[in-house]
């Protein structure tokens, strides 16, 4: 019964996200601004998505953070949530939806292909630190996603396709400043993510840092963010170079979130 409703709500949410993304893309291509419609699709989609997650949580007895299906389910939710907030609060960058939503589509496709088995909660997961850790991680990835959308605009503007489509947006220097402010916020949450993750590992496994694959990748991402901030400051990099650096950060973070758990089974499940 609930499994039925859960699935229906999920499908409806995904369809709404696709509508939001397609509307945004058509908006850019046809030089229109269907912004209220995009935001409405996103918000209704989020509500339904939240219902799905709630029902599933109730049904299987644990939150969406154990297997790949659950990680995708909850990360699509948090990315859309953070992106929607940015979309709402920063009208100047709304055109980024045409670039950001396709990234989400990719995750949605992966979600539909992954196995939605219920899974079992390892005993190392019974701690509040896990929730805090996951929360910070999601905010980090969300802010980087918004920054990636902005970087995409900076890069696309220089290509032939744009045909002046993004000309009314703030200039490159300003977009560059905004995207690095987002990176700064991202770095704060990423640092908090590392700290709380270390607390969790210390509590659960008796060691705060062990250079397991996930920890190593997370550290490399963190150091690359610090590297980008410093390179930009000390060498006055162009918005174009800065944009590439942000994309690299996103790729590293993306691999850490979804690639490492995908190739190494259960690196994050402790002694279970």
């Amino acid at each position: 019964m609930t499994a039925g409703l859960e699935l229906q709500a999920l499908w409806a949410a995904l369809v709404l996200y696709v509508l939001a993304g397609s509307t945004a893309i058509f908006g850019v291509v046809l030089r229109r601004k269907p912004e209220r419609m995009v935001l409405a699709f996103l918000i209704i989609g989020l509500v339904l998505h939240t219902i799905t997650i709630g029902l599933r949580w109730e049904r299987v007895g644990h939150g969406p953070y154990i297997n790949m299906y659950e990680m995708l389910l909850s990360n699509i939710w948090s990315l859309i949530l953070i992106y929607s907030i940015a979309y709402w609060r920063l009208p100047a960058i709304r055109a980024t939806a045409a670039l950001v939503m396709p990234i989400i589509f990719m995750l949605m496709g992966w979600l539909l292909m992954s196995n939605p088995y219920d899974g079992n909660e390892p005993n190392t997961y019974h701690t509040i630190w896990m929730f805090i850790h996951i929360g910070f991680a999601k905010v980090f990835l969300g802010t980087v996603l918004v920054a990636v959308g902005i970087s995409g605009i900076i890069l696309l503007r220089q290509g032939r396709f744009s045909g002046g489509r993004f000309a009314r947006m703030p200039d490159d220097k300003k977009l560059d400043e905004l995207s690095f402010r987002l990176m700064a916020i991202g770095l704060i949450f990423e640092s908090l993510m590392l700290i709380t993750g270390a607390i969790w590992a210390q509590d659960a496994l008796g060691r705060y840092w062990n250079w397991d694959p996930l920890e190593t990748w997370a550290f490399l991402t963190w150091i690359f963010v610090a590297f980008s901030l410093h390179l930009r400051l000390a060498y006055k990099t162009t918005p174009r170079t800065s944009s590439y650096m942000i994309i690299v950060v996103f790729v590293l973070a993306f691999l850490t979130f979804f690639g490492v758990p995908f190739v190494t089974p259960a690196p994050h499940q402790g002694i279970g």
Partner: protein
Amino acid sequence: MTMIYKESMIWTGISKLGSLKLTPVILALVGIGAAISYRNEGTTTWAMALPLFLVALNILAAVLTNKKFHRNKPLLIFHLALIAVVVLVALGRLTYLRGHVELTEGEEFSSQLAEVEKGPWHWGNLNLVSFANEGFTVQYSSGVKVKKIENSIRWRDEEGKEQQGVIGGLVPLKLHGYKFYPSANKGFAPTFIWRPKKGGSPMLGSVHLPSYPMHEYRQALAWTPPASETNLWIMLQFDEVILDPAQPSLFRAPRNYQLIVRSGEQRWQLKPGESVTLPDGVLEFEGLRNWMGYSMVYDFTLPWILAAAMLAVGSMAAYFWSKFTSRPWDK
């Protein structure tokens, strides 16, 4: 004249060392170092230690020479806290201890039993630790996944008072800076009374069979009774299913079991209370107990690393806050 000249040379040197142009290069080295130590399974400490040393040097030189740090306290505090984290982690590596100890039900901890690995400057005193394993339960959910470990223990606290309690999961025993965590590495321990032929008092001893259920099908071991020359091979036999993958279950000793004891060509089957006569004594099988494997850790730097890391994040947030609120991004 020359003094001033020399001083200014040194100063120029320090400010070069503290150049912000160096920072990205050094940060890249940290990243490369992390990748190298990861690929070599952490054996290459220098690949991390050297770049981190450079980070500290670069920051310290910049703190002395870069005016931005003098004007901006949160930025200064952030970078100093970063050095503090690096130094504390290094100190932790030099003074840590980690190890493993197995205790039979009823057995007292002694530092001789433990297998440990420690940093060259470890200054804790493991000899002061005194506690005993009073028995435990391990609950499994279906699919034989550990759900909960509860271990009753008795210990002497730091004032020398006897205490009793339960540890397990996220709750370790904390004593003299050491932490003891009962683990899923546990098993059965056939317990014997050994009466030497030459006389003397009988001895109680137990043998830890390989971890259960990890080595479910290898519940056997070679063993020599204390002060004896007879080499034995013992094996535990039972038919019950202890941990059923199909449903939640509890780790416990089997109800019906026997012990196979072999010495050379001879072979015996023992039930609890039965004994065999060996050339140099009598071995009585008292029965089956459980043993628990504890992991032990000592690292006094932990709360300080946490404090330094929180200070770093807090001051970084304060720095960005004042920087961003002083000017909107699109102005």
